[in-house]
């Protein structure tokens, strides 16, 4: 042993072996999950490190204005003018793109209750949402004569049993939906004779009647309504009090 260590070569070899053992031990001992689960706040995740309720974010204080969302264009943001009257004109040019965007959004958020035609016969309406009061029918005289700001206001703040959609639909899309509602209103009250001849043929080929899809009897009746918010009246009048957990689009999808 002593002879072996005496040689310079042997000492280097022993040092190398020792170093390899230390590195191996460090690598094996270093196997842990720190990278896998990092102490950072991810959207909608649980986090016990900061707040007592384990939430990563705080509920917004009433009246909070999101960064970059200051109410600079009052009519665009609220649907009312500065005198408190509903606006009668769109605060932007109404283009085919706007209407198409409105159709796209309408079919996500509005058709469940208001139906594809806006007649208030969506599948949720048919399943019992009409118990408290009928779902709005855009094709009525009253709503056809409403200023456009009304539709923006209802989407933003809700109406009757309808919940507010301000946390789910951005203002531009709300105006887009309002423009598509106008399209539905006009199309439902336009005589076939006023449609261009080639489009008439297309329409006749479709042979669609609104009631075709309607079930013969009401499907699955809902249980009797329960008083959700006893003193405050309709549940729909209660706006989401800052408990919205939908990630805001403010970070543009970056992390």
């Amino acid at each position, binding site marked *: 042993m002593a002879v072996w260590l005496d040689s310079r070569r042997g000492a280097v070899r022993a040092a190398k072996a020792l170093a390899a053992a230390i590195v191996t031990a460090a690598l094996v001992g270093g196997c842990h999950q720190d*990278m*896998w*689960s*990092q102490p*950072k706040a*991810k*959207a*909608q*995740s*649980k986090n016990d490190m900061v707040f007592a*309720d384990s*939430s990563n974010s705080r*509920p917004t204080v009433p009246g909070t204005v999101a960064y970059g969302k200051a109410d600079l264009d009052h009519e665009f943001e609220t649907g009312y003018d500065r005198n408190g009257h509903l606006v009668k004109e769109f605060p932007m040019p109404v283009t085919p793109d706007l209407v198409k965007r409105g159709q*796209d959004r309408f*079919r*996500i*958020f509005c058709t*469940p209750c208001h139906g594809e035609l806006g007649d208030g016969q969506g*599948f*949720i309406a048919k*399943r*019992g*949402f009409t*118990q*408290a009061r009928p779902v709005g029918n855009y094709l009525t005289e009253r709503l056809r004569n409403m200023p456009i700001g009304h539709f923006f206001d209802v989407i933003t703040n809700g109406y009757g*049993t309808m*919940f507010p959609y301000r*946390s*789910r639909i951005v203002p531009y899309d709300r105006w887009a939906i309002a423009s598509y509602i106008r399209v539905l209103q006009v199309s439902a009250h336009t005589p076939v004779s006023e449609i261009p001849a080639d489009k008439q043929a297309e329409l006749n080929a479709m042979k669609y009647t609104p009631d075709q899809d309607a079930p013969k009897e009401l499907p699955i009746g*809902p*249980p*009797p*309504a*329960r008083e*959700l918010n006893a003193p405050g009246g309709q*549940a*729909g009048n209660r706006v*989401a*009090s*800052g*408990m*919205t*957990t*939908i*990630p805001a*689009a403010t*970070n543009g*999808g*970056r*992390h």
Partner: protein
Amino acid sequence: MAQIFKPAMNTVCTVSIFVGAVVPFAILFTGSRITRGPLNTKVENPLDQPAPFSHKHHAYELGLDCRFCHTGVEDNAQAGLPATEVCMTCHSQIWTNSPNLEAIRKSWESNTPIQWNKVNTVPDFVYFNHSIHVARGIVCNNCHGPVNKMPMTWKGEDFRMMWCLECHKDPSKYLYKDDAHPELTPKQQVFNFYKKLAAGDPLTPEEQELADGLPQLVPPDKTHEGVALMKERGINVKQLKDCYICHH
């Protein structure tokens, strides 16, 4: 001179060669099956939730759009779980006595978020972005399994890196194209797929596979279509394999 090896040593040799050659592989194979199997990855393992939410009922039987609840999916990295407010949009009026919805009502009345059990997770060093995937025509079912058939939600795929790369190496096999609605953008086609399912529209064999939760593999005779789609949608395959695409 006596024999060194007795005849019985033949058997010992055969067995030791067999054991030495096979057992290490058997251990490796078993280990990999366990770590890659549902026991570890939790695939097709429906989790208990505070309220028994059914995607099958809401997204398929009713035909509610995915984006009604997952509002972030088009613009954000996260698709997002809906706030209690979204549940109460309908359930303030419908099924208001149902015991299944007790957790929702409690959350609404106490102004406390519901703590759902997370079904799909990626490690913290992976930065997955939903918006780009749906924008290029990857259908929800491609990664999340047959969501339209899930009474309780389970994890559709194992989300191992190898699985991600399977598509990132050649997305042409997985891009969705709806030949019945060519006027729609790839993203609109993705969500229209669920409208077609709910409406009971006729499906192509590939669409049927997608609805059943099988990976939508483009048949060999249609490969060129997938490649053309990639070009049309501006998908740069070389870039897709770069590390920073997911780890930045």
